[in-house]
């Protein structure tokens, strides 16, 4: 992650969010999410949710193989939002799923895999 994330034209305003939240793998994004506060989740949600239709439309126009750096950054931001949104919508802003097993004890076999890899498994 970098604080000068290149974004596709029309999505430059999301560069700051990408620097804060985006990560190339599930493990990288989980570390960010586990350290987020309810206020962090709300701010992310409020900024991203209105833009989600446009973000998904932009990503829908590119295959995983064809993504340039800017779209890859947008992809990683969208993936972070995809995983973070339930914490605002469903879990009251908690970084943990309430009344659950510790997420840190779940080991994703794909945890360090590049999230846009075509052979993701």
């Amino acid at each position, binding site marked *: 992650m970098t604080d000068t994330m290149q974004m596709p034209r029309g999505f430059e305003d999301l560069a700051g969010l990408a620097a804060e939240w985006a990560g190339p793998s*599930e493990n990288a994004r989980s570390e960010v999410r586990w350290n987020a506060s309810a206020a962090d989740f709300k701010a992310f949600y409020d900024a991203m*949710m209105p833009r*989600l*239709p446009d973000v*998904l*439309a*932009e*990503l*829908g*126009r*590119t*295959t*995983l193989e064809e*993504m340039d750096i800017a*779209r890859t950054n947008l*992809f990683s931001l*969208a*993936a972070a*939002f*995809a*995983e973070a*949104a*339930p914490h605002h*919508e*469903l*879990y009251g802003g908690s970084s943990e*799923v*309430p*009344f*659950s*097993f*510790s*997420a840190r*004890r*779940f*080991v*994703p*076999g*794909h945890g360090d895999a590049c*999230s*846009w890899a*075509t*052979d*993701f*498994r």
Partner: protein
Amino acid sequence: MNDLSDAAQRPGAEAFSHLGRSLEEIRSELGVDPVSVQSIRDPAVYELEREKIFKRTWLKVATDQELPEKGDYKVKELPVADASVLIVRGKDGKVRAFHNVCTHRGNKVVPTSGFETFGKSRANVLACRFHGWVFSTDGPLRSVPMESGFGKLDKACLGLREIACDSWEGFVFINFADPPEQSLAEYLGDFGKLFSGYPYNEATTAFRYSTVLECNWKVALYAFSEGYHVPTIHAGSLPGFRGIEHSDFKLIGPHASSTIYGLGMESAESTGQFAGVLHANPDQGPRPDLLPPGINPKRRPEFQFELPNIFPNFLIHLAAGCGYPGIAFFTHQFWPLDHGRTLWEGINYFRPARNAAERVAQFHINALHRNAWLEDTGTMEDTFTGIRSGAIDNMLLMDQEFMIRHADRSQHAYLAR
């Protein structure tokens, strides 16, 4: 809703009508009495399970898609059988299983890290790092450094020790018995027919999770074997859920199955958008037409997924995109590490994303489902502690928990052999 012998069924469903059970039939066959927790609590029972269940039944250890090319291998550590198992696709394309043991002095041929190790043999040989004995991926011992120094060495008898291995619908099973009492097809029986025909191999995007649970393996298995818990334990991750119907009960030898029908769900706003992306692609959307004919035989639109229990420790929840958006199927497996420790493995399978938006949507759906699994696993260690305390001697099981009652029966039948 457990009648599978109705006239309005899908063509071919009639072949499975003998598996279906009404609630009355389930109660009559399996009883309604409490079930003892002694087999969970008693370490001596676990020792019997190792010998009479895990070393005698067919166990799923891999999938074809994990070993797509010749020379691909997977090593699975199975403490329940004191074994390290090498599953490898040979140069003839066939998948075989061997003890991951060098026939020289017993070292692991493939060094391992963790419970699963993946690799590729580019020359279709595997060399033991201890002294350099080289084995073909189809088993024979190929070469021995300083062979003349042994004086006498019959290499033809010193191949890797093979374990019975067979595949069903792309799932690779092994059986430690030599020879197994039944072929894999015989062992799966009508379960194999009921679940056959779905294109499992097309769902190649896999999200894999595992964890070590401080509980007996059956506590973990049972927690994922019923729908009774959904309205309570998943109230956090499924707050808009208007309830489920758990029905179409089926008894299939040592295996069993049932169906989860959803009665509607108000999804969160973001989930609605991500689901919309997946459902815009016919391959990612609900595909009830791909379900085998004996599953959801009446084509009910509320179908979510089929919930089986494949004896002794494997579940394939077949959804065809009808439940969680885009999920083709998901599996659970419960590997005993010792009496009170279990390796749980859960995998969500999707069809490949057509574009970057679909992959993002898959991450959202996977996260929702992973989080529901966190709610499920959150009960297991507490349950085992409670059972070990001696405070209860029995489980009280309602109709939707019939697969627990049935699994307990299947276990006792194997232990009595």
